């Protein structure tokens, strides 16, 4: 499984066994709540929950690079909001002649928390769910099998295409094509590469289309599935509690 486009981490934990649909729902509910109740306390609580889930799924360490990556976005939020938020009144600190304001910084903090929340919620989905299982669950729920195929095959076929590109590049380089150097050289090298790459992937796609056809891809029968997910009782509990959380937050919003 070295060559798939996915961040899935194989572990044997309770979190991995939860119905993929529930993880999708969790991500949606978390995002919804951060917008319905935009308070720091709620945000912090949700972050805590997500972190606990990630720890339970033994994938917390994989999240850190994702957060680091989003750090750039958060930094820009802090700078821009700290300097230019329209409600800025109370100065907090100065760097050289530039003044940061309290209102903007608080707002930036709130936004950043939302970013982290969304990131963590989706990280749970992405890191602990096999893409194929997720897609299969969606197909079982009524997603078109054709679209499901497009999603799941893209994860494997794109890396295969990349390796085709690599071998075409090697072939052209062995005939003396310069592919490294300054921009002009690279642009010139692009054209002799793109022809064979496009042609070979068109031919391959046609062949694969035929191979799929003869395996009853367009069959009108009702599709069956090899994997049988036994719904655990906890799946229902999780689904209900997510729903309750969402309803509660809406009620709170109305009351406050």
């Amino acid at each position, binding site marked *: 499984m070295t060559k798939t486009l996915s961040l899935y981490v194989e572990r044997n934990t309770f979190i991995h066994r939860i119905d993929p649909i529930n993880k999708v729902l969790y991500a949606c509910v978390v995002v919804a709540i951060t917008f319905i109740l935009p308070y720091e306390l709620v945000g912090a609580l949700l972050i805590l929950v997500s972190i606990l889930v990630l720890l339970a799924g033994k994938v917390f360490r994989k999240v850190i690079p994702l957060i680091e990556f989003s750090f750039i976005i958060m930094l820009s939020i802090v700078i821009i909001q700290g300097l230019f938020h329209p409600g800025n009144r109370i100065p907090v600190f100065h760097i050289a002649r530039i003044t940061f304001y309290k209102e903007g910084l608080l707002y930036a903090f709130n936004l950043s928390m939302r970013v982290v929340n969304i990131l963590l919620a989706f990280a749970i989905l992405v890191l602990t769910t096999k893409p194929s299982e997720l897609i299969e669950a969606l197909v079982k729920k009524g997603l078109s099998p054709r679209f499901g195929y497009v999603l799941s095959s893209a994860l494997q076929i794109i890396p295969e295409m990349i390796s085709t590109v690599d071998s075409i590049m090697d072939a052209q380089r062995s005939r003396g094509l310069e592919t490294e150097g300054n921009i002009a050289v690279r642009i010139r090298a692009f054209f002799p590469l793109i022809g064979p790459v496009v042609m070979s992937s068109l031919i391959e796609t046609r062949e*694969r289309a035929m191979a799929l056809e003869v395996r009853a891809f367009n069959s009108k029968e009702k599709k*069956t599935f090899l994997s049988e997910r036994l719904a655990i009782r906890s799946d229902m509990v999780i689904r209900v509690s997510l729903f309750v959380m969402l309803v509660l937050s809406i009620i709170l919003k109305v009351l406050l």
Partner: protein
Amino acid sequence: MKKIIVENLKYRYPLSEDLALKGISFEVEEGEFIGIVGRNLAGKSTLCQALVGLVPHFYKGAYSGKVEVSGMSVLNSNISELSRKIGIVFQNPFTQITGAKLTVYEEVTFGLENMGIERKEMVKRIEYVLHLLDLEKYKDRNPFELSGGQMQRLAIASIIAMKPGIIVLDEPTSQLDPQGAEEVFKAVQSLSREGITIIMVEHKVEKIAQYTDRVMLMSDGGIVDLSTPQKIFSKDDLLDYGVQAPVFTRLCKSLNIKNKDTGLYPATLGEAYELMVKYEQNRS
């Protein structure tokens, strides 16, 4: 029972001026193993694809004549319906992997899921084909990590799991190394033993002579002859059709060693050996 009936099949690809198939007729019995030989562009692949319905349903184009597979008219059925009766394996093992499944075991299920086969039956069929094609060891591997020969065997397994009764192999070994090719030939032999009707296009004539019941010689969109390997490979004008006889036949031809009963040259190593021993005994 007749498994395949083809009557005066003519076909022209879209955008092309010439007929790719120029009035082909033949019949195949259940359990037969037919080899197809002929030079490039003789229409071998087109014929294969006409049997499974890719011609005309996938390519469109002009079509006349009748192809009947296990009692189903190819023209009036769609490819998915036909896939229950007849399967095809192509040259390139790589493009026959769906890419939607992560293990060899799951890959086999692709067609079965589409056909709506019950889960229990699915498991039974998968175990059967993985055993038949000697792929059990690799069942948890990613299909893309297999060798060419293994991948091609997986492609065959995925088709056989659909229980088609007839399998068409269009140059299944042309992109494989000798070892991979040998694996595939062994697999094809075991299919034949299971009573599956096989149509195989192949350039390795020694293999064709060894395994097949009858050989179809094609040229220029038509059938030149359809007969036993001995008869086809004993033809004097074989080279005119771009086909070379097996090395054993050529050797015996140059020594003029014939089977006295049939008046034909041998086509396989076994036959050639027997005749040569007789020939030597007669001389001494």
